[in-house]
């Protein structure tokens, strides 16, 4: 188990490193530099120093080695556009993204699970068909478009939720009181719901299929034959065994939430990683772009790793199989 874990971890690190490398070369091969040939605000003199400071006048290979060296010391460089260390900008953005992703995952799984179980119990009857199609619809629309519509309905037409943003800067500049935590939750609702609903639609489909498969098996039939109440059969015997594929879903949901969040954060003016990286890409803020690629791929790989580990713990057969391939 330990050897397996170490191997998986090494592979994960290698993947992140590969992503960073690709990103690094992709942006450095792109035309256009932060210090244009005749930029007015920065004199050629300043630009020259800036280049020397960031190493942008050296050959690409040297820059790359320099970057990796700095990276290994935890130094992510300094942002061109924000005039501050990249690490600081990330430290501001990551908790926000995690808050949003966490809330969205919660909605995703709770709602998805409940709907999946309900649909499986009522399989092929009216409720199942309607929910199945509604779920399919949610799964088929652009996430940001759903966000726009929720915003239109619940913020413009009905003033139930704020028009984007993360907090009320007058009453709650900091998360100091309970009231401010509630304020944050209030701002969080629509973006989390947007991501969560789309995710829940997918989760429900998986869960329904898994439940149906389990409920057709012998031990469930046995449990029923023993005269156990249907509710108990479904919730205890069937659900517990149908939860296994759920772990994979958890790993899969991670990248989905991240990419979905790029757009949803833009729609709701949520200052997380998505907005940070999009703005950085648009502004050619290379250090921030590379660092966001690092974080994003890191989270994806971490999600997968976590799912693998959980799976291995839950079901030893999987470990063997993954060792074969």
């Amino acid at each position, binding site marked *: 188990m330990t050897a397996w874990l170490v191997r998986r971890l090494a592979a994960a690190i290698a993947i992140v490193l590969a992503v960073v490398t690709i990103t690094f070369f992709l942006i450095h091969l792109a035309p256009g530099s932060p210090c*244009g040939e005749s930029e007015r605000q920065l*004199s050629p003199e300043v630009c020259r120093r800036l280049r020397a400071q960031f190493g942008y006048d050296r050959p690409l290979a040297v820059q790359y080695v320099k970057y990796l060296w700095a990276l290994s010391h935890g130094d992510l460089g300094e942002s061109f556009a*924000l005039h501050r260390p990249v690490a600081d900008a990330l430290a501001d953005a990551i908790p926000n993204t995690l808050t949003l992703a966490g809330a969205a995952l919660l909605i995703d799984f709770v709602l998805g699970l409940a709907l999946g179980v309900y649909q499986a119990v009522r399989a092929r009857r009216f409720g199942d068909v309607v929910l199945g199609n509604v779920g399919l619809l949610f799964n088929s629309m652009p996430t940001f478009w759903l966000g726009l519509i929720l915003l239109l309905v619940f913020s413009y037409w009905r003033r*139930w939720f704020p*028009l984007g943003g993360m907090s009320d800067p*007058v009453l709650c500049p900091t998360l100091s009181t309970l009231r401010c935590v509630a304020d944050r939750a209030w701002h969080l609702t629509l973006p989390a719901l947007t991501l969560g609903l789309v995710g829940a639609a997918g989760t429900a489909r998986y869960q329904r299929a898994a439940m149906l498969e389990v409920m057709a098996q012998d031990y469930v039939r046995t449990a029923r034959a023993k005269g156990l109440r249907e509710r108990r059969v479904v919730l205890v015997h069937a659900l517990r065994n149908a939860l296994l594929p759920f772990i994979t879903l958890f790993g899969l949901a991670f990248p989905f939430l991240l990419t979905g969040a790029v757009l949803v954060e833009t729609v709701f*003016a949520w*200052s997380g990683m998505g907005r940070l990286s999009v703005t950085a890409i*648009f502004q050619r803020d290379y250090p921030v772009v590379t660092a966001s690629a690092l974080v994003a791929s890191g989270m994806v790989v971490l999600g997968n790793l976590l799912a693998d580990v959980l799976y291995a713990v839950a079901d030893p057969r999987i470990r063997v199989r993954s060792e074969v391939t």
Partner: protein
Amino acid sequence: MRAPSWSVRRLVGASVLLLALVGCERRPGCTGDYCGAFLIVATAQPDVLLPPVTDLQYARDVTDQIFLKLADIGLSENTIGDEDFQPLLAERWEWDDPLTLVFHLDPRAHWQDGQPVTAADVAFTFDIYTDSTVNSPFRSNLRTISAVTTRDSLTPVFRFHARYPEMFYDAVYHMRILPAHLLRPVPRTQWRSAAFGRAPVGDGPYRFVSWKAGESLELAADSAFFLGRPHIRRLIWRFTPNLDVAVKQVIAGDADAVEVLGQPGNVKLARAAPQLTLYPYPGALYGFLGFNLSTGGDTTKPHPLFGDRRLRRALAMAVDREGLRKSVWEDLAHVPPGPLARLWWIWDPETRELPYDTAQARRMLTWLGWRDSNGDGIRDKDGQPLGFRILVPTSSALRLRYARLLQEQFRLVGADVQLDEVEFSVFNERVQSGRFDAALISRNPDPTPSSSVTQVWTHAGIGGSNYVRWVNPAFDRLVEQAGAATKRDEAKRLWRRAFEVMNDDAPAIFLFSTDNMAAVHRRVQGVVIRPDSYWALLRTWRIPADQLTDRDRAER
């Protein structure tokens, strides 16, 4: 749709319950004349809070509350002479001789760390603003000042190279005085990334409190401010990237003020909001489609298309500027007869311009050899299609609209236009380095035409703000004469002749000059918006004690 609405209602219920519970913990809060929290929405955050290294409007709005000028322009926006200027850091001034200006600093003025403001600070500030390493965007505005010295600790002395009507304006308007004792240790190469720029210490009515990147920025009234304690206690900017959303936040009561309302639909909505008062003011903004006359910024190489004056004229005649203005702005803007802001007194509707005449535009293009030989609707010459790209910043929804409308109008006369929609800083960089065909540029110029027009449209601006690289000696001469003219009538006549020369040459199509409208919450009184700097007089605004809301009373 059953599932989502169910969960929404549940969540609403839960949050309402939670709010009701926590609403019980109430603190007494602020009462009296010096309370009030004023929330402004802005569509972008400042880059850095250090006046000499940024000319971003969003940064200036904030830093002008933290740092003071020696004296400020009056509400008349008169830039000639010194009669209309209001004392700020300097309580008075006099001219020793026509080239020597002596200021007397207010002895009560002090930095927010307790140190007094001295003449040495003024000399240091001038040194920074004119330093070639710091390379302030205001450096060229100060080229007429030869030196700033100190006579004693409260008396800075300005020496000029030459006499001209706007000497005083140049001496006081561009520089915000900086604390030398805090900034002297910062290396000149690192001003942009100095820690001071994210947590400044100034001498103005407000002091810095906090800046949450991408979210909000808060200032607090300095109760010991020497010109009188500001009535509004907390000043907060909230950053909402989309102007239409920002306006809706103000309308919904989530924010107190926004200085421009953007598209006309927003004005209608704001007018209907009972808690808002609208304040119209002449805009300081004009926008144009500039043709790049050079290739890649190299003025020795004329642009393959726009190097030809006749082609520029043909394209200018193909554009229905009035129609565009009505479509985008309705009656919130005028079509300017040249590079003119509504604010400027030299605006003359009689100025001669090229007509909107698509028939003539088509004839001219055909005559120039541009014909549609392959029937695809796009003219071509020697196998080359008549095509160019328009550069436009994504930060401006209204300019994006202009770009789309222009694209279609040019298509109708047979020109194929592609749009380069880029982020604001990329736009700036490309416009400055000359890497564009045509660009939708807007200028937010100074209150005075002479320095602004000189920088943007004459030979002096090459390598600076003359992004289109257009130079016309006759125009330059007229601008110089107009700037030196002491009589207004005379100056106005000269300006008009200058712009007629320019319109004939068509280096740009002047599309709009805005009449702005600010929306401010009704409970705020004494609101005066100065067109060149919206919040400049905010320290005199007040919220009467009987109109304070819970938000005003809330402690941080």
